């Protein structure tokens, strides 16, 4: 049995099944089992690719190499932990009267379909299909963002749909231009949008068209990554949607969009002399990092604040890939992994905390350590991890990015340090009283699933202390692919 086919088929089939079957008693279990099987298939696929190198599936339709198999494994893993987390979380929401049964059904089936679209986007070899899958990923999550049907959530979903729709339309124009450039070299055929074909002739692509195309692609997919000034949808969608959705949007969707940019950057770098694509990404990255970090201190809603923190980290990662080269690419990939794991863990902890206290306003959440020490410590440790405190993996990747910047782009270092410092002050200052302040809270009918928080944090901690050699090899391999 082909593990790749399983990785894609399980979320698709289970998504349709969950939609058809309706909200039964076994639906949450099916959701978890499907995510677990997807994850197992992804792990086996990864093992296969690491052992025997890149390969095509179904002719040249899909292409799996060490770069995207790494994202596939990460996506499947966070998908699994989120489905475990969402079981009790959604049951609590149901009993608080916030969600009806049909909406739970919508949530589960859309969640699986969302996983499917992301996995297609990651593994397809065709840049046109990549666009289609990215747009489909937006479509599957729009109704999830508005799941509570409150005025604010409808507004957030509307903004998300329109802004990402417009953004992704720019990316389509970029794709058309790319096809136009490719067609002059590869001829009129369906092959001219296949990434592997494009990569083999990237030196011959016309630099003028490629430059314009990359700008459109960066702006288009950048809207989904949350790059400033196109980030407006992101905090709203994260704050108003259900917490499991915030966790996968932050932990996975942003990564997938960034992956799309990386694939295009490889082509643009080959076609355009003088580091045009790199400079553009460095500029956007720094701007994003700086603006987001200053917005952090003004936030009152806890999920909104962590959404801004996601924007900030995406900026840092974009900057790292903009610098390019083996070390910076390695650091960028590591930081993406660490951010995914840490940020989704934080959202899990925040979700439970918000349920316990019945609010997302930070000033009203106090003394988590007394209400539930496990959630309190989960949030505290997660926050320390995301702020780049030493034993955790985020420190390792941020340290690599900083030292690389000091060596090759010293002008950027003060900006990086300023932004990271401001972010630290803002987030730590707000989370500390949430965890250690005086309290008033209620009991939840369903015990929260807190394991995912600590599983994620344990991995992040492990990466900070010791990265297993086979993982290092794998990261190096992927970083080398990016040039």
């Amino acid at each position, binding site marked *: 049995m082909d593990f790749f086919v399983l990785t894609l088929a399980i979320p698709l089939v289970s998504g349709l099944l969950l939609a058809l079957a309706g909200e039964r008693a076994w639906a949450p279990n099916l959701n978890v089992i499907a995510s677990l099987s997807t994850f197992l298939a992804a792990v086996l696929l990864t093992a296969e690719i690491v052992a025997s190198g890149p390969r095509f599936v179904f002719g040249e339709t899909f292409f799996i190499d060490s770069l995207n198999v790494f994202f596939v494994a990460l996506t499947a893993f966070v998908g699994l932990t989120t489905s475990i987390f969402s079981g009790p979380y959604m049951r609590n929401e149901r009993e608080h009267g916030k969600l009806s049964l049909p909406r739970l059904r919508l949530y589960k089936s859309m969640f699986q379909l969302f996983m499917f679209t992301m996995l297609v986007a990651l593994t397809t070899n065709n840049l046109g299909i990549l666009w289609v899958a990215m747009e489909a990923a937006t479509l599957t999550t729009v109704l999830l963002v508005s799941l509570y049907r409150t005025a604010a959530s409808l507004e957030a979903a509307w903004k998300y749909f329109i802004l990402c729709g417009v953004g992704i339309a720019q990316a389509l*124009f970029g794709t*058309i231009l790319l096809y136009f450039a490719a067609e002059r070299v590869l001829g009129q*055929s369906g092959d001219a949008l296949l990434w592997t074909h494009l990569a083999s002739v990237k030196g011959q692509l016309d630099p003028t068209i490629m430059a*314009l195309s990359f700008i459109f692609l960066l702006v288009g997919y950048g809207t989904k990554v949350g790059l400033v000034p196109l980030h407006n949808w992101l905090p709203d969608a994260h704050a108003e949607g259900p917490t499991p959705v915030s966790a996968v949007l932050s932990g996975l969707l942003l990564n997938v969009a960034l992956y799309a940019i990386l694939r295009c950057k490889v082509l643009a770098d080959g076609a355009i002399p003088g580091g045009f694509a790199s400079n553009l990404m460095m500029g956007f990255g720094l701007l994003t990092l700086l603006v987001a970090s200053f917005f952090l201190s*003004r936030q009152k809603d806890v999920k909104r604040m962590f959404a801004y923190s996601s924007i900030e980290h995406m900026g840092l990662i974009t900057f790292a890939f903009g610098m390019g080269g083996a070390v910076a690419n390695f650091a960028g990939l590591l930081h993406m992994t660490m951010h995914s794991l840490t940020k989704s863990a934080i959202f899990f902890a925040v979700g439970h905390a918000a349920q316990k206290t019945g609010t997302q306003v930070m000033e009203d959440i106090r003394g988590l350590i007394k209400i539930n020490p496990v959630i309190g410590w989960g949030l505290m440790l997660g926050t320390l991890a995301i702020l780049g405190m030493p034993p955790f993996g985020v420190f390792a990747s941020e340290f690599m990015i900083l030292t690389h910047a000091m060596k090759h782009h010293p002008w950027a270092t003060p900006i990086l340090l300023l932004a990271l410092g401001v972010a630290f002050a803002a987030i730590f200052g707000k989370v500390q009283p949430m965890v250690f302040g005086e309290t008033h809270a209620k009991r939840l009918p369903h015990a929260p699933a807190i394991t995912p928080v600590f599983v994620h944090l344990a991995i992040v901690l492990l990466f900070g202390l010791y990265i297993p050699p086979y993982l290092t090899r794998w990261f190096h391999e992927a970083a080398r692919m990016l040039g």
Partner: protein
Amino acid sequence: MNADMPLSAQLINLFASVILLLAFAMLAQRRVLTLINLFALQGLTLCLSTLVVAFTTGQAHLYWSAALTLLLKALLLPWILHQLVRKLNVKSEIEALINIPATMLVGIVLVMVAFNVALPISELSQTITRGTLGIALAVVLLAFLMMITRQKAITQVVGFLSMENGLFLAATSATYGMPMVVELGIALDVLIGAIILGVFFFQIREQFDSLDIRHLEKLKER
């Protein structure tokens, strides 16, 4: 533009100009139903121009995409929009944020920008349709302008779909259309998007008793 241009190229340029003209007409339109009809007309023109390109170049897959355009952009989507307007009792007047003449002037500037951006690329293209790339970009920008300056959710959606028309025109004009599988995927996305929007309209209306997006401006940085 030289006189010995083949008839087909002239036809394509004509259709492209009509599409641009319709984009301006949509920008100036005050009534929702007429706006939807103009959008349908734009889809029809797009289909005709695709047919001419298909006939001239003998690209078989372009016939399919012309058929797809006709079905989706000229018939199905306008029909869905008409149904929505009827079921939701949308008031027929459109309120614009900027008055219409000012919007038109901004539109003219956008067209000039689009032509300038597209110029270096058009020169590189060998297709008979290369002149229309600038027009396509102009249609995209005009649709974008419409989305920014209008207050009704439904007008924003028509703007969004009209942007898709511009992109499609760009695809046929620069490259004789994208590969079939991609085009099918795009059509599917547009269709699902329209359906989700329909669902969404009902949710918005249920919540606010209106489709005015002024209600959707509460989430701001304070």
